[in-house]
């Protein structure tokens, strides 16, 4: 770290052996050198939940200013002024379009690109490796990567891909569609998915390791002495504190505490994980409890946003078509099986409970985002967190009127607090174009977009 009498650089890192820790926005960073005001970055995240929602409990019956929210969205009541609830957006590439079954793979595989992914079973024209024919995958570059390509150079990570469920990248996961489609949300190109990091430990070390990861030696030494990652940056943080006022010292202390809390929870999960049956295969250190796993991953996204480590995140909460049971809320049946409820009221109720559970955990995250101040705004204000799914009705596998909401105003770019319903068939890519604009990326077309959504900013 280089500390001078001038304002701290925004991209200051606390460093130690194998550790590089970004910092939240501090008063000492304002104004920056050359008398310019520091840029408050806008962050963007796409949070994908599988298999849609019980839309009768999602869609309000009104448009305009948000008032009382339907059952599933009840936990979002404290955020009514911070959110946009959008209706009638469509993912046409999720539909069969002559290609038969595979709605789940298409839902995720083309969700952020607006294209219909290609089935693998009948096409191996992409060449071969090791002398064998290799099944092709083909989708499209995703909206997050368009942004990452343009502004990713400003942060340590151009983008961050976070997940919670399934790491399988090959094989057939849905009616001839590759698992690459169900298990990845971000695609760097039409043939290059960016697998999400599922394991909290791996994500933690990616965020705070030097050059991406802690070295094996550093990790072993730290584990041997049960040392915290903070121990390695103590010297730097003490130096820094001498330059900070009381407010900044408090902010820094809160930040380091939140990092430590995440670290402790990861360690506890690693210790106790074997006692929990998640009902599915998991990496070793991954919590079996959905809410705890979500909290860890989302806390690290918050830290990454706070410290401006990245401005672009995709968060695949569950693989599309997930059959995860939710025993912690007394739903032992698989999610996917329940969504094919055939109008059975008991099954519909259980799906609604899962939807509510997802939203409760999401709302807790948003509360945290809202609690972090950045100048006159909050971290949430300076972000756009798009929560949604590429399927609306899991029973019928529909891809129109998708459940879609945005938390945060993108630094005031979006006029929040409203329910806006678009005309039928309006491509969800129109939303992505508008969010790109908020991120400073100007494009006229993307995916199957037919234009921007100017109502979001008016």
């Amino acid at each position, binding site marked *: 770290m280089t500390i001078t009498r001038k304002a701290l650089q925004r991209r200051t890192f606390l460093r130690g052996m194998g550790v590089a820790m970004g910092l939240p926005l501090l008063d000492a960073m304002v104004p920056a050198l050359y008398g310019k005001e520091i840029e408050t970055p806008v962050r963007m995240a796409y949070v994908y939940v599988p298999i849609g929602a019980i839309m009768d409990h999602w869609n309000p019956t009104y448009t305009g200013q948000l008032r009382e929210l339907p059952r599933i969205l009840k936990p979002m009541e404290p955020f009514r002024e911070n959110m946009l609830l959008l209706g009638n957006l469509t993912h046409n590439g999720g*539909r069969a379009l002559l290609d*038969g079954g595979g709605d789940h793979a298409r839902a995720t595989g083309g969700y952020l690109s607006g294209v*219909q992914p290609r089935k693998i079973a009948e096409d191996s024209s992409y060449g071969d490796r090791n002398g064998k024919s290799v099944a092709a995958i083909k989708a499209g570059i995703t909206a997050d990567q368009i942004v990452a390509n343009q502004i990713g150079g400003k942060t340590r990570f151009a983008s961050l891909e976070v997940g919670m469920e399934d790491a399988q990248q090959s094989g057939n996961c849905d009616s001839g569609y590759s698992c690459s489609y169900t298990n990845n949300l971000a695609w760097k190109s039409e043939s290059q998915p960016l697998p999400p990091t599922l394991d909290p430990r791996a994500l933690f070390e990616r965020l705070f390791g030097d050059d991406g990861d802690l070295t094996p030696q550093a990790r072993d030494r730290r584990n041997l002495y049960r040392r915290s990652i903070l121990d390695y940056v103590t010297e730097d943080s003490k130096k820094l504190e001498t330059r900070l006022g009381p407010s900044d010292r408090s902010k820094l202390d809160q930040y380091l505490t939140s990092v430590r809390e995440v670290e402790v929870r990861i360690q506890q999960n690693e210790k106790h994980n074997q006692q929990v049956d998640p009902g599915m295969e998991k990496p070793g250190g991954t919590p079996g409890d959905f809410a705890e796993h979500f909290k860890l991953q989302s806390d690290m996204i918050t830290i990454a946003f706070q410290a401006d480590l990245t401005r672009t995140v995709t968060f695949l909460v569950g693989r599309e078509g997930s059959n995860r049971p939710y025993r912690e809320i007394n739903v032992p049946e698989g999610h996917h099986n329940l969504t094919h409820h055939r109008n059975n009221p008991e099954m519909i109720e259980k799906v609604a409970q899962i939807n509510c559970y997802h939203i409760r955990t999401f709302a807790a995250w948003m509360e945290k985002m809202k609690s972090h101040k950045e100048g006159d705004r909050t971290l949430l204000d300076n972000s756009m967190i798009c929560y949604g799914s590429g399927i609306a009705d899991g029973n019928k596998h*529909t891809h129109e009127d998708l459940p879609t909401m945005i938390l945060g105003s993108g630094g005031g770019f979006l006029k929040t607090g409203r329910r806006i*319903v*678009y*005309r*039928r*068939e309006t491509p969800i890519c129109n939303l992505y174009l508008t969010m790109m604009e908020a991120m400073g990326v100007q494009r006229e077309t993307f995916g199957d977009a037919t234009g921007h959504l100017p109502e979001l900013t008016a």
Partner: protein
Amino acid sequence: MLQPRQTEKPSVGIVLDTGLSRIDDVLAMALLYGLDGKKEERLVSVSVSRANLKAAIYSDVVGRFYAGAVSGAIGFGGRTLPVGLADSGPLKEDLPFFTQPLTHMMLDGKPAYNSDIKTDLDTAEIVAVVRNALTAQWDGNTIIIVNGPATNIARVLATGNSKDWIQRKVSLLVFAGGRFPNGPAEENVKADVASARRLFAEWPTPIVVCGAEMDGLVSYPGSSIENDFAWSTAHPVVDAYKAAGKMPYDAPVWAMHAGLYAVRPKEGYFKVSDPGTVSVLEDGRTTFTPSGNGKHRHLIFDPAQKERIVKTYTELVSAKPVEKPARSFPPKNQQKPEDVKKPEDPKK
């Protein structure tokens, strides 16, 4: 919505964009639903270039009347095929033939017809609904019929990657508009000259024009309305016809020709010109210049076919909708849509 992979090429998909300016446009719509019921085509998209919600509601009513017998192309999970509606354009006003049927009440006091469309939000964005319908068709297996100003279809042509989809999916566009070989400007062209000029200059696949010189050479007989629909206690086409003029009358037709030619191009109902190029002048007049490599042709009326055409129209429009059989799932690993060769221009 769960759908089986289509392994056999279906009948041609029809994308209809109508101005709903006269009863002829309603009859043309009924004709296409009749042909769909006979499995000669599939009406996969309906859009209205009249920026009038009641026009969209009426189109939805007609579609629902034939529901179960016609083909929703994409799968809307319990919702009807979305009706595209222009949000602006030269046509706006209410016309009795599409407003009065909406007020038809049955003896029990209930409306004769229902619609899912209550507000503009229940209609579809034009570009998306047409483009999305194209994406669900086999290559080269779609025909677009435009019975009205070219406003909507020119917007589709100009937006995003739609042109690529048109090139890939559309074998033919049939436009009821213009006047050939010459004459004063025709209303569908005159209403939006810029869009018509763009259409003829930029449309990437063949266009067949049904000019206004064909208008009125054939009429739909009022006697058919009075005699051929006894099977239905309420019929939205009959209501529209009766609202459009004082019965009994015979309605001159023109848009119907575009629909009949599009679906049955080889059955000799009409003659077709040699290829050439249609140009639209600034005042809306149209010219046709013969050219061996031109992409345009225009229909020519054949008086010898008049009686046959009228018989065909009355049979198809008054046909009772036939319920389609339940879907079956065909075997896997059969021919893919992309493997089917694009059909040639029907005239070549």
